[in-house]
């Protein structure tokens, strides 16, 4: 199911001016043009004048090109990067509180260590785990936690940056010059 959903999801990373009302402008645009937001994360950038929104959109609800063009018309929108399924590094954070009574506690901690999750809180018969990773990995972890009984679960929505090029451009230039 996850894979099928992935196929129609596109990620837009949108650099916007850090002013009040910008989130509302972006969200309003999506709703009035009938575009479906799958997840949305807003975060500060290294430059305090700007924020970055990572919007995962359902590209079936409207052509992605039309969505980006309309977004670009918003004046506080500075720049949009569109990442196809293989073009970005995506990460998401999940917090999950699961039932973990004494009899299953070791199994839960074992699962946590397999997923490199951290135990951030421990109660009498429950534990809160934190895991960061690709959305698929988080899906897998929550599936495996489910049998223990998930009390509460929250995900941040994904953030993404473009994948870096692996071409050693400088090296190649040097070579061609010497040849």
């Amino acid at each position: 199911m996850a894979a099928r959903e992935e196929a129609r999801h596109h990620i837009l990373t949108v650099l916007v001016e850090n002013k009040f009302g910008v989130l509302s402008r972006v969200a309003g645009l999506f709703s009035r043009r009938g575009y479906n937001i799958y997840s949305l994360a807003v975060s500060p950038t290294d430059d305090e004048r700007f924020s970055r929104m990572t919007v995962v959109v359902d590209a079936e609800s409207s052509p992605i090109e039309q969505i980006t063009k309309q977004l670009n018309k918003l004046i506080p929108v500075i720049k949009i990067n569109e990442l196809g399924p293989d073009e970005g590094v995506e990460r998401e954070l999940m917090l999950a509180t699961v039932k973990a009574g004494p009899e299953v506690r070791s199994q839960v901690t074992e699962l946590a260590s397999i997923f490199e999750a951290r135990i951030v809180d421990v109660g009498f018969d429950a534990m809160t785990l934190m895991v960061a990773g690709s959305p698929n990995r988080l899906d897998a972890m929550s599936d495996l936690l489910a049998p223990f009984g998930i009390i509460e679960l929250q995900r941040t929505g994904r953030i993404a940056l473009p994948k870096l090029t692996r071409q050693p451009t400088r090296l190649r230039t040097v070579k061609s010059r010497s040849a």
Partner: protein
Amino acid sequence: MKLTGAQALIKSLEMENVEVMFGLPGGAILPVYDPLIDSSIRHVLVRHEQGAGHMAEGYAHATGRPGVAMVTSGPAATNIVTPLCDAYMDSVPIVVITGQVAYSSIGTDAFQEADTVGITMPVTKHNWLVTDAQDIPRIVREAFHVATTGRPGPVLVDVPKDVSNAQMDWYWPDGVELPGYRPSTKGHAKQIKEAARLINQARRPVIYAGGGILKGRAAEALRELAELAGLHVVTTLMARGAFPDDHPLCLGMPGMHGNYTAITSMQRADLLITLGARFDDRVTGKVSAFAPDAKIIHVDVDPAELGKVRRPDVPIVGDSRLVIEELVKAVRAEQSKHGKSDLTDWDRQIDEWRRDHPLQYEQQDGGPLKPQYCIEALRDNTPDDTIVVAGVGQHQMWTSQYWRFNHPYTWVNSGGLGTMGFAVPAAIGAKVGKPERMVWAVDGDGCFQMTAQELVTASAERIPVKIAILNNAYLGMVRQWQELFYEERYSEVYLSPDLPDYVKWAEAMGCVGLRVDTPEDVVPAIEKANEVDDRPVVIDFRTDYREKVYPMVAAGDSNDNVILGPEYGEGGY
């Protein structure tokens, strides 16, 4: 120099060369109305805030300069939402200033508080809430820049009362700095070359000219292109006047109530040269059946219009005038390289359609007064450069069909939003902007009743507009649809010809009121109205309620199925 925010606001408007604004004061905007007394800016006091917005639009339509309206907070701001939306749909540059409750009170449900910025976000190109008086000159500068550049549109500046009262150090910014706003103006050279190649190869080309021609001041360039390549031109409802109706290459209005030749030439075209138009549903009819054989060149300053409805073969983002001027050069180069294409067969076909399917109606002597006859009489008894303003409905379509628009910026109407009540205030705004020109509004009786009170404004301010009401006692276009598509089941469309008494109403508002019942009285009444120059005139034309707008393509139907009208006998309705 220390100024209050209010003084800085008025001074900023002066710096933007605002000569007139339309508005109505109230609590939250009171501080700004005080320095207005000492300003060179003329203020037209309206009777309803919606009127202020439409007047600003009419002014912008007629002059090309941004129209300015100023109103208070809360209900005044919500009253001006309709003109904002209207201007947004038709890309009209207007700047609306609204008062707001004190910044410190925002969010407390204060008296006359409304989230104006939130409410108007979807219907403005951009809007601003001023939080610091020091920002006022910068924001005003940005507002005018955004409203008038790229694809023009409405903007709104919301000014809290305590910000207006606060002190600031006056300055005027050198320019605007909006990193997220850089409208492209010049078209892509390679694409323009490709467009020229297609134009020179086409056998059945048609120019589909939209409102972007007028917004981009591109009427002359359009004419040059059309004449250079012998291209026929359709002018959409928003582009009437962008190409002269008397020109042999002009095909007039396409679309739902366009003429047969304009509609059919687009349907049969092998190339649509789309210039500042947006494939509106009222033009295309059923999109999948629209101009099926046509390749599309699409020129628009708004990149989001390219591919929104119909995927273009050659998309060109840019200012209509600059792109068309480049296109003219490129077509000339193509012609000198490959020779000019021969369009004789196509021209002959178009002439045949024109001959066989002209617009038709019949005014019988002594018979009921036909609305089309009134419009033709008005057209023939007014100066060639008369500015014509319409509301929305049958009268608007008849005016667009029967008027001869031979100059740009002589036609003002509400296209995209279809705002009934647009005509009276928009005519007032147009007349304020072009006082030397005759301004006639052709209005429906339904439309007139929505905003007629602005004639009080016109009388008080000595703005001598003229209003021709085509009074058929019905919400005519709705009646037409109920007759044709709802089995003549007339639901809530009757208005009465005599209630209100339009002549008395006009007189009560300080206008000259005239009434015309028969065809022979039409011209004398128009002549009489034309002589009045010190107050508005209203003529109540009692027209035949059975008359319908033809041709017609039913909503959602293919443009191949043009209903021509009863005059064509069997086969028509």
